[in-house]
């Protein structure tokens, strides 16, 4: 994992309280589980029908019937439960998940999210993302601040097909921690050495900088 991605995963990992029920998306969000502070144990919900999903198994200990939502071998911790997909998404849509952490192609100042297709190019499909974003009590976007080509990802208005409207609550990038409110995107923390001018220059949407902005650890 790159430094940027580790910084993001670490910060997201401090956004939970002990016992929170959390669904972690594929990729960077999954890494969050590796950085949880001591004393913070999450109940990880995996949309393929598992609670208390654990870390990846040791080599040779894989169970053919236990995978995470990305298809990789996984484990189930004590206290875990298995259920079918209708129940899994009832849990998601029914508001029984405290938080979901997902990646994004684009987020905008109204909390809109686009992360499931680029028309004419890549169309992987939305999988469980649309339900997770609508159903989870708190939606946290964990992503690198800009694309590899330096394009904006935090926009005034998403240009790609939306995953959901006005559902994103937080954005965590390697540059800072941002909260999406009715007033717009408020910068709550800045990565060490990053100035308001620098993060704004890499963000299409206008950012709000309150008086007290903490340093992102």
């Amino acid at each position, binding site marked *: 994992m790159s430094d940027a991605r580790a910084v993001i995963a670490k910060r997201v990992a401090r956004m939970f309280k002990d016992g929170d029920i959390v669904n972690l998306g594929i990729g960077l969000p999954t890494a969050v589980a590796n950085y949880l502070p001591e004393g913070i*144990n999450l*109940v990880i919900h995996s949309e393929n029908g598992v609670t208390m999903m654990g870390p990846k198994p040791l080599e040779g200990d894989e169970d053919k019937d236990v995978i995470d939502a990305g298809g990789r071998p996984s484990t189930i911790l004590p206290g875990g439960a298995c*259920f079918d997909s209708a129940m899994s998404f*009832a849990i998601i849509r*029914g*508001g*029984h998940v405290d938080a979901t952490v997902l990646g994004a192609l684009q987020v905008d100042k109204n909390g809109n999210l686009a992360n499931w297709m680029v028309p004419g190019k890549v169309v992987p499909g939305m999988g469980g993302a649309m339900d997770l974003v609508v159903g989870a009590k708190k939606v946290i976007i964990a992503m690198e601040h800009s694309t590899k080509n330096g394009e904006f990802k935090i926009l005034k208005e998403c240009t790609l097909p939306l995953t959901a409207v006005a559902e994103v609550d937080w954005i965590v990038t390697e540059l800072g921690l941002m909260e999406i409110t009715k007033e717009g995107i408020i910068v709550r923390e800045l990565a060490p050495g990053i100035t308001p001018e620098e993060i704004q220059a890499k963000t299409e949407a206008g950012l709000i900088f309150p008086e007290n902005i903490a340093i992102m650890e």
Partner: protein
Amino acid sequence: MMDKVTNIEEIKKSVTAGKTIMIGGFLNVGAPEKLVDMLIEKDMKDLTIITNDTSFPGKGPAKLIERKMVKKLICTHIGTNPETGRQLNAGEIEVEFNPQGTFVERIRSAGAGLGGFLTPTGVGTLVAQGKQIISVGDRDYILELPLKADIALIKAWKADRMGNLVYRRSARNFTPLMAMAAELVIVEAENIVETGSLDPDEVMTPSILVDMIIPGGYENE
């Protein structure tokens, strides 16, 4: 590891806000007798009770009816409890009857974050009155809306300390759905086992839906 096992006094303290209460059970099988008694000890009034039937005289939810604690009853059938029928005919209680499939599906719908569902059941009957009819293909359906509660009082056969639940035989009935559809889910468990001792495939209600557990149930009486 989380431990949701507590005592009846703590539960009494928690049951304050809200008076819409779901109670599991089908003709008292699967009904949480001890938690019903808790409501009686608290002497709650003007309750809205959501339960399939009102059991038999002197048992489970019937005790709340007999003590006139219930203002409104949402159910499917009251034929086994003459006192509920008497109060209904005397205008002492409001009773909303739902077809049983509609009743349980409305509860599931609330727990699953849906806005409702289309059912063919009840089309052309009193049940359809005041409800939206939607045609799909060549068939008419009633749009039925979610049914949720402030509190669910349920019984499990086994609970681990974290709140994973297992039910037994026909005592399962409405309980797994009610566990999804209330703000506060309180379990009376016949057997409490250590977390990790249940097989994940055996669990019928995952721990994340459960808030509080007390020992109770038939086997502990």
